[in-house]
């Protein structure tokens, strides 16, 4: 297990109070350094809850979450604050405007975490420039306000903002779901470039309801259905030869250019197979 960057084992998570609802059931998942894992599931499947668990934004009812060999589910109080401040796990929202201040230049938003950590100014500038280069965002764009960037450029700025903290793990929650096709492809390409450049250290957990947007980027796909992992395997295998009925239904439901989709009877049969 020590080779894993992220190792989630037997994770149960409950949300709500009296009555609690179990949202994640016995979830296990690993990410090795340099690996990109796509987490796919429909709305309500628990994928964002899993991401929030990894960030310690929600507590586990059972199970463990090891990051670089350390169980973060047991961190409390000061130890938890220090772990958070170190920033080894960084979160990228679907809407980049949640992390970019509309009133300041993009470069200043990218540098914010470094300023809070009182990193010297020259070092801040160096790390901001390096992160902007990693996501392929020209420096003159970073001099603008977020409103002067396209959706895709904003999302790449939000990724740069996460990268300046030198994280071990990036958690990207629906990073391209709100973008136009051209912007989406550009962001995916930037993430692929990042994956190739950081094969030895950085891991990524990319969450999406859209399996198509994960296909090119992910080394592995993990399929979440009603709070349970129903499939986990190399992307090509999961897409071309899905095993679980839900994964098969998911793949069968995606319109694919040039290939007639499975008919509705086949999909109905798969749906029935999930329930039983």
């Amino acid at each position: 297990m020590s080779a894993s960057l992220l190792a989630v084992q037997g994770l149960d998570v409950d949300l709500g109070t009296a009555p609690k609802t179990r949202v994640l059931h016995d979830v296990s998942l690993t990410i090795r350094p340099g690996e990109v894992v796509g987490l796919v599931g429909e709305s309500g499947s628990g994928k964002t809850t899993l991401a929030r668990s990894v960030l310690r934004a929600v507590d586990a009812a059972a199970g463990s979450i090891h990051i670089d060999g350390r169980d973060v589910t047991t961190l409390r109080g000061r130890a938890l604050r220090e772990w958070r401040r170190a920033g080894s796990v960084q979160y990228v929202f679907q809407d980049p405007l949640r992390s970019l201040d509309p009133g300041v230049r993009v470069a200043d938003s990218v540098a914010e975490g470094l300023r809070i950590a009182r990193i010297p100014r020259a070092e801040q500038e160096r790390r901001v420039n390096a992160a902007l280069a990693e996501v392929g965002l020209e420096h003159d764009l970073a001099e603008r306000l977020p409103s002067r960037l396209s959706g895709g450029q904003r999302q790449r700025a939000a990724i740069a903002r996460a990268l300046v903290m030198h994280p071990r793990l990036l958690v990207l929650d629906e990073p391209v779901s709100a973008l136009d096709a051209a912007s989406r492809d550009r962001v995916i390409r930037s993430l692929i470039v990042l994956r190739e450049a950081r094969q030895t250290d950085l891991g990524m957990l990319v969450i999406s309801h859209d399996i198509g947007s994960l296909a090119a980027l992910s080394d592995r796909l993990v399929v979440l259905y009603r709070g349970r992992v129903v499939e986990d395997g190399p992307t090509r295998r999961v897409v071309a030869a899905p095993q679980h009925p839900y994964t098969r239904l998911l793949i069968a439901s995606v319109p694919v250019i040039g290939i007639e989709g499975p008919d509705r009877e086949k999909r109905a049969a798969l749906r029935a197979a999930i329930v039983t």
Partner: protein
Amino acid sequence: MRLLPDNVRDGVPTEAPPQTPGIPARVPEGTPLHTPGLSAQAPSFDETPLLAPPLLAVEGLRISAADGTELVHGIDVAVRRGDSLGIVGESGSGKTLLCRAVLGILPAGIHVTGGRILIEGRDMTAATEPEWRAVRGHRVAAVFQDPASYLNPALRVGKQLEEVLRRTAGVHRRDTRGQAHDLLTQLGLRDVDRVLRQRVGELSGGMLQRVLIAMALATDPDVLIADEATTALDVTVQAEILDLLRDLRTQRRLALVLVSHDLAVVSAVCDRVQVFRDGRVIEGGATARVLRAPGHPYTRQLLSAHAEYGLERYLGSIL
């Protein structure tokens, strides 16, 4: 009931298109391709003048903002009974402005500044609101991306559907409940009685979109426009709504106009495709032809993006 959300165009600048080399090698001509557009009976783009007059046609349509900026630069669209036309484009391509223009609901300050809108041969270009009211929902109906925003969250869904049947379709009050039930049953909903008693917050996105489709069909329109109607849905639910739209087209002999940013979605349903970009139709024709022999670099780019980033990457050759 709110008719439309306010955000027609989000105004966000579009990124420069990525420079993509040519699309991957294609299979030789004549290889069977399983798309609906292959059907020999399907009216091709080029044959249209020979056929019956269109239910809906726009000719050289131009749309401009209040400051004179032209947003749509002369587009031609025609659909006939039983047609299925897919319109593909990004936000800002003019596809949603087209939809709103043919429903007579362009946002304040945005006007038709050239060309004609013909609905069943009648020129609606300069129609007044009362004239539009006789057409909108009757001859041409539409469903959009976010069904919840068109329903009142405080009222039962059934009451709202009955209201549409009574006011728009002129159904007698004593018959509305039965007709609401029949409509939802025809749309493949199970447990219809329960759905009719529920409110917006208690229904899934797919259920709400079925209710909106039922409202759109209440007046038995000739043309149904679905503008990004499945975009916000889970993909398994999207597949069911696309099945439903296919069925409606054949059962009711509707002309279906399916608008989406996703070329794969429209090509799965529609015989013909038009590709919109920056307020122009840059390519149009039978779906099979557009996919197999795209004439415009932008269409080739859409196809190569699927080949490179989509499931197509793992599921065998893309055309």
